[in-house]
């Protein structure tokens, strides 16, 4: 039982509980905060997988920007800040069945496919390599993503504009 395994166990437990709380809590703001926990856990997992740059981006973008955006959204739509009884619709049972079924299928497939594959971490992923990769092999997708962001920006403005 290495340290990494312990860390993974802790992170996974926190994430699992938080994720479940995100989709079950009766309080919208709490949901956002649990989401922060999950996202942070994901960043931790990234570190475990030797992707430090990604972990930092995850924290900056997700926790720093997206969650804040969510909080704004909650406020602007005047969602009930406290506990609200009817955040779920009437297909909780269906949802649970579908989700569990999917998890079963996926779990089984993964076990079938990678049941005893060990993960060898030889090298820490260098940010420089990531950057080089982005600007050489993946330069076109990168440009496309930037256009997408711009389009999203413009789109969000157009949609949300009050006129």
């Amino acid at each position, binding site marked *: 039982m290495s340290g990494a395994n312990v860390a993974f166990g802790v992170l996974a437990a926190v994430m699992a509980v938080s994720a479940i709380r995100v989709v079950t809590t009766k309080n919208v703001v709490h949901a956002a905060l649990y989401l922060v926990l999950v996202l942070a856990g994901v960043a931790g997992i990234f570190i475990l997988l030797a992707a430090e740059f990604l972990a930092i981006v995850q924290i900056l973008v997700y926790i720093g920007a997206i969650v804040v955006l969510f909080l704004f959204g909650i406020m602007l739509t005047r969602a009930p800040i406290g506990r609200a009884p009817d955040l779920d619709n009437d*297909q909780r049972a269906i949802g649970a069945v579908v989700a569990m079924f999917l998890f079963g*299928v996926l779990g089984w497939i993964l076990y079938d496919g990678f049941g005893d594959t060990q993960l060898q971490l030889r090298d820490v992923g260098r940010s420089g390599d990531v950057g080089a990769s982005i600007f050489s092999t993946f330069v076109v997708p990168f440009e496309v993503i930037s256009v997408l962001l711009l389009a999203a920006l413009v789109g969000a403005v157009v949609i949300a504009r009050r006129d």
Partner: protein
Amino acid sequence: MVLQNIWVIPAITASSFVLILLFGRRLPNKGAEFGLMALTMTFALASIGAAQWVGRPADLEVEPASTIKSAEAHDEEGGDEDHGNKSDKGHAGEGAKEHAGEGAKEHAEEQDEGGHGAEGTVAEAGEGDEDHGGGHEAEPIRRPVDRRWAWFQTGDVKVQAGTHADGLAMAMLFVVSLISLLVHVFSFSYMHGDERFTHYYAALSLFTTGMFVLVTASNTLQALFGWELMGLCSFMLIGHWWDRDGNKNSSAALKAFFTTRTGDVGLLVGISILFFAAGQTFDIETTNRAALTGQIGSGVLLAAAAALLVAVIGKSAQFPLHTWLPDAMAGPTPVSALIHAATMVVAGVYLVARLYGVFWVAFDIGGGGINPVAVVGAVTILIAAALAFVQADIKKVLAYSTVSQLGFMIMALGVGAWTAGIFHLFTHAFFKACLFLGAGSISHSGSHHSFDMVKDMGGLKDKMPWTFRTFLVATAALAGVPPLAGFWSKDEILLGAGKNGYGLFMVVGLIGAFMTAAYMTRCVYLTFFGEPRGAAAHHHPHESPPLIVVPLQVLAVLSVFAGLLNAPFFGELFGKWTSNSTVLGAGIAHHEFSLVAAALSIAVAFGGIATGYAYYWKGFRVGSLRHDRGPTGMLYRLLVRKYYLDDLYEGFIVRGIREPVARAAYWTNQKVIDAVVNGAGIAARGIARFVYEIIDQRGIDAAVNGAGIASSETGGLLRYIQTGRVQQYAALMLGAAGVFALALALL
């Protein structure tokens, strides 16, 4: 040589069709000039071609089938194989060739160069098939002129289009182009002022093209082209006045096309069978040869012949598919003349004559037994002739007469009298065309567009002298009065039937001839004699204009002299000119002219005329002379003492025929056969409706809609699913994706 280039003939009329269609309306004569020009040209070409054919040396020896079978196969190694382009060589296969094991391709190609190879393989004339009188001499015949072009290729078979010029084809070309030319001339005046004059001429051109294509075809597929082209044109022409009388005319057109098309099922099937049976070729000569040499199994051959016979019955209006022909009178009269005399209905006869080898072997025509071809012909002769007695419409009399005469031709072919059948076709064309055009002339100028002999005619003899004379000549020819055309050909048929061991069929023929003479007498009487009635009395009948009369005169002259072509005193030229390898290969017996038979046939013809004359003459006099007399001495007393015989006849024969038999026949015709045809249509609609409404809409479709219908009845399951709510869709989608993933994983 016209013979190598007879493709020009259909090409001329086809281009005339196109030209009329494109430019007809803008011309002063509305397109008729193209038609007339084209037909004049084709007639000239056909005449020249026929002359060249006659002048061709007879140098091809043919031996009967039995010897072909026994002769060893000498396979000729072909020299240059030029795929049939532009080669004008004799026709292959006269030599005894069994293409055992040879692919069809070589077989087809060999057609081109078989000519020179043929001599080498001609076996010595051996023992002919002597069972049926006459005997057969291996007299040399003329070599047919073939020409082939590559047409298309499918599978490993190259199909060639081609022309086949021999005596039969040339005779047909001559008749068709001549009749068609006269019909064109006649129509120019007759159809003058018709609102679809241009269209009419275009259809005439195409119609003639169809017949030309059929006649010149070297393979069954091409023949099918011509065959169906005529079907199409008959549809257009019979339904020419589709805007008059409600649906009557167009229904007649439909019926014509539909009935012949029913027969065509047989043609499609027959051609398909023969294609494979003859070694994957459509070529007619090869097919005949294969049939005669026993290359084709008897079962297969029988199936093919039976299928083809169905087609013949449909096209040539034989019993029981003849019902369309009288209805087809709805078309313009010149069209009726064309259909009945030279094209369309004789196509069936022509087909049998062309594929005679197939029919000969399949039905064992040489054997002298009862065979379907002869039976069909014989039954048709009687049925149709009986029907002709009760018609009031002059065109229907003529129509039934045509059916009956076609029965003669078919019967002739069925009893092995090939030449006689073809010769009857040849002569019949002239006098039947004359009769139809005469009827047209009467309606045009004499009876104010009516065809009803009983109501609107009578006494036209003096008003329309030329029409009367020509009509009379043609009637006499049809009735078989010597020495007019019909006598020679009909006599030959009867002779052939008698000598070939078909005694029963000869009797039928005699009865038929008798009836023909009688009903034609009635027809002439009602039209030209007696008091004018109806339109003939009130609308100032007068002689028709020259363009109508001249064709009548031409045809009348031909009706007189055409028969001499094959008359024994003139060397029976027609038979020599038309005889071809198929026929001689079949070992057809040739019979000398018999005075007894001739006398019999003359007696029958005059008997018929006299009977009819007496009866109808009497029909307009006091009815006090009705006394029954014995049938003995009928003929003599008919001529001398009309009264008694009339009574006898009326009481015993004519009434017998006219009342129960003819009525029953007509009733059967209308109520049974027609009803079956109509009923089949209605039943098909009924079944169709049932299938559509019950099985299709409620059964299969319902099964498809099953989920939807069931759910809407039991609580709207499907509607519940389609709520428009994204999350439910998403649940479904993800669940389905899971299932799919599971399926993939399990695979």
